[in-house]
């Protein structure tokens, strides 16, 4: 059974129909990329899955349970975590604190106000381990707002995976990076994705085709094709609608 | 019935006075995100400037010059104060205007003393216009209404017909647009702030002699303006207009209602409970006692059920 499945999803903003009937199944362990031109509704799709918006029609199920209509934090607790296109971190807190906050729910500390955070289970050890994993150990005590762009992206991904979610949504993880940074970051993403189910929106086709197991093409709120990278590359409809001459 | 009409007309007048204050505040708030705590202080300055000018020349001199002076002062405060604080965020901006209100009040006390000043209605307008069943309606009140309507029309024309007005309108519904369009946003802010407080100044000119011109007048007007702005909805001049009228008329009408809870019980055939113990006053509170808190009650309820306000175009 699919770990994440989207059935007949619609979303309207007033008269504007942004998502017009999407059906998609993501299998466990899969790395699934969503591509499409600007304004195709990719970010809206992510916002629908992750709970930012609730759908006008249709539903999303995670592990077979309906999650559409739930609040983002409820969806997150069920094992789905996302990153943001624009770095969405706690700028006034240091890197270590950022990660520690991301780890709290999964460490089971809840809304605890009677124990010090540092004494709450193995949360500090886990934060250090995570900091190692994303390569930010050296900057642990620096204010997150002062990090370089690429470092902020790494932190963003680190916070996304911190809670141990089984399904991850990455919204344009390499947006705004230079060529060299993109290469390093793609390797990093590949490592992160191991053992997890990933859904990713991405503009950089090199990254998409090197990482994705399957690709969906979203145009005007509808998926016009889903398949293995080579099939998508070969699909005439996709070529016409999206990839154009440069593919 | 005549009394009712009189009270209604009076509520309308009060509502229009409130609107003269809240229109500027809502523009400033919607455009700049600054809830100007000092807005009523500019109203007070308008009254004091007009008093000073009318003691030099005539009331009409004050009517024209005082709002201009207030506007220039407001623009200067925006340029050299608010703009500096802007980068520290909205809380800092809000607190800046909060401190400003404080300072203006002390400044007024410093210059004009602690007593009310004798700012009087001009003799040419000090007569009875008409009488409805024994209640006089003074010419000055009609004049106030006239000024308020004229101001409303002028602001509307300004917004609909001029380039600056169109920019402001665009910014009200989509605050990010202006930056994207590369307009001189800081200058626009300065203009709107100056213009907004000038409107408050005008309200002070015509309200100061109708009511009392004293250092406490800003605080008295005070927070009710925020209620109107938030209640009317962010970015909506029309909302502010409706809210001003609703609050003006409702407050005025409530004053005439004397039915208490025990009256109500008696009217329903029950016996009024013997009022003893704590909270016994609940039986004897009439709507007229609640008139001043009514706006706040409305505000809290509205914000809970509809945080964007009456006609708000967006959440804050």
């Amino acid at each position: 059974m699919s770990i994440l499945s989207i059935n007949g999803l619609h979303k309207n903003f007033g008269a504007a129909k942004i998502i017009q009937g999407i059906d998609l199944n993501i299998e466990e362990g899969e790395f699934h990329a969503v591509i499409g031109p600007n304004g195709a509704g990719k970010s809206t799709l992510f916002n629908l899955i992750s709970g930012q918006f609730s759908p006008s029609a249709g539903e999303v199920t995670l592990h077979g349970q309906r999650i559409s209509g739930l609040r983002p934090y409820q969806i997150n607790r069920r094992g789905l975590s996302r990153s943001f296109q624009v770095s969405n971190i706690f700028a006034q807190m240091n890197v270590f604190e950022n990660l520690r906050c991301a780890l709290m729910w999964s460490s089971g500390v809840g809304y605890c106000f009677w124990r010090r955070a540092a004494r709450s289970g193995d949360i500090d050890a886990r934060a250090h381990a995570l900091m190692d994993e994303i390569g930010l150990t050296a900057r642990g005590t620096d204010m997150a707002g002062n990090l370089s762009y690429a470092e902020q992206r790494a932190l963003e991904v680190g916070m996304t995976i911190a809670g141990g979610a089984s399904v991850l949504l990455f919204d344009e993880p390499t947006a705004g990076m230079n060529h060299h940074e993109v290469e390093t970051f793609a390797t990093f993403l590949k490592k992160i994705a191991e053992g997890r189910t990933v859904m990713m929106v991405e503009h950089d086709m090199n990254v998409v085709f090197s990482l994705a197991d399957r690709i969906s093409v979203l145009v005007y709120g509808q998926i016009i094709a889903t398949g293995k990278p080579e099939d998508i590359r070969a699909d005439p409809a996709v070529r016409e609608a999206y990839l154009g001459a440069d593919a | 019935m005549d009394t009712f009409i009189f009270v209604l007309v009076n509520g309308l007048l009060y509502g229009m006075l409130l609107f003269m204050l809240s229109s500027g505040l809502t523009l400033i708030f919607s455009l700049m995100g600054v809830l100007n705590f000092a807005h009523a202080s500019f109203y007070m300055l308008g009254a004091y400037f007009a008093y000073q000018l009318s003691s030099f020349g005539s009331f009409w001199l004050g009517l024209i010059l005082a709002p201009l002076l207030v506007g220039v002062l407001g623009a200067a405060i925006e340029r050299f104060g608010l703009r500096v604080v802007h980068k520290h965020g909205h809380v800092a901006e809000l607190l800046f205007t909060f401190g400003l209100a404080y300072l203006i009040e002390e400044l007024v006390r410093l210059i004009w003393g602690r007593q009310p000043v004798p700012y009087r209605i001009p003799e040419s307008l000090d007569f009875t216009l008409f009488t409805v069943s024994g209640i006089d309606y003074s010419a000055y009140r009609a004049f106030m209404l006239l000024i308020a309507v004229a101001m409303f029309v002028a602001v509307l024309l300004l917004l609909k017909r001029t380039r600056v007005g169109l920019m402001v309108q665009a910014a009200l519904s989509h605050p990010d647009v202006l930056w994207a369009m590369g307009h001189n946003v800081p200058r626009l802010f300065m203009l709107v702030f100056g213009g907004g407080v000038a409107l408050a100044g005008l309200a002070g000119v015509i309200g100061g002699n109708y009511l009392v011109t004293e250092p406490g007048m800003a605080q008295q007007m005070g927070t009710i303006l925020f209620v109107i702005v938030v209640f009317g909805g962010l970015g909506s001049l029309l909302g502010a207009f409706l809210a001003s009228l609703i609050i003006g008329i409702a407050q005025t009408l409530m004053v005439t209602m004397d039915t208490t809870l025990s009256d109500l019980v008696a009217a329903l055939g029950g016996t009024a409970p013997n009022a003893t113990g704590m909270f016994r006053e609940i039986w004897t509170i009439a709507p007229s006692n609640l008139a001043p808190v009514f706006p706040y009650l409305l505000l809290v309820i509205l914000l809970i059920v509809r945080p964007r306000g009456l006609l708000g175009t967006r959440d804050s």
Partner: protein
Amino acid sequence: MKRTLIILAALVALGAALTLPYLGAGRFVIVLLTQLAIMVTFAMSYNVNLGQTGLLSFGHAVYLGAGVFSSLYLITAIGAGHVALPLEMVPLGGAFAGFTLAAILGLVSVRRAGVIFAMISLGLAELAVAAAMLFPSVFGGEQGVSTDRMVDFSLTGLGYGRPQEIYMLVLVWAVISVAAMVYLSRTPLGRLANAVRDNPQRVEYLGYAPYWIRYIQFCIAGTFAGLAGSLFALTYEIANASVLGIHMSANVLIATYLGGITYVLGPVVGALMVTLLEINLSRLTEAWLFYYGLLFIAIILFAPRGITGLLVDAPGAFRRAGISGMVTTLARWVPVVGLIGGGTVILVELCYHVSNSFDPREPLTLFWTPVSAQNWAPWITGAVMMVAGLGLFALNRRNAAPRRPQTGDAS
């Protein structure tokens, strides 16, 4: 190193606070110290909302008031023998009252932060004040509710009639409260509150509901405000509805902000400063409110992180600048501050003297010199100082500009 210094300073301050009453300090100093302790507790509780969670409240005094009135009634009930609670434990009752009210009003308040929250808090505060005025049977109207704290039932056996005794009690509770709130900032909830303050959306994607984080913090803030209210009730033994008014809420906001909301102990600094200013500056000059307003605006304009921010940054800045740099900076700015400050004081005092003093014809003492406000000389002196200071200021700004690139107006 830094930590030890802070702890050392805290211990010294505590030691001083404890011993002062026995060094022959008068009643005034003791009542002042008691008031300081109350304000510190209150400001700390305010910052649980503002600094830690990003909730700007204009109605925090409502929760203080809950503590005040419940404690007044509680003390009376203890005195009458209806409640078997030692006097020392009264603050628990105030804390409970503050908590209960916050738990009820919080449900509708904290759905949104920012301006909406601020406006709801303002509306609720106005309603609370109005309600208090409408129910003299509970709040005592103008004359308020009074009680007598000498109830013959205490743990220590003290009568608490003397100011020193009540001061000790207040101090103990204040220290416990401040410690608890500092501790709170280190707990998971405290950290999450900071996260909600910075970015509530992100928190929601980390499995937490920002609403509940705000709500719990709000309740905690209300609890300690209620406790502070209890201390108030114990000290003054009387209160009317004005304790829960806007003035009290504005005061704690100003104190907290001046102290520096980004520092855990910022409110302590702010509350100490504002209370001392309010009580002492008003004894120096009648224009104190004016200076107070100026100071507040100056802090917002030039030191957004408050007094604590200045104190924390100062050593580093001195180290960086070196001796010569410091001398240049001082040489550049001391005249400016001196001239503008001196000019302002001269003009303001003259204005006050003319418009508000008992007798404007009498000479007033300005900087230890008697001058007559009827003369032009002092006015011209003040104006010249002011203009010169502003000119120097502009000059300095221009000179400093290349080294300190202007940041854009955009945020």
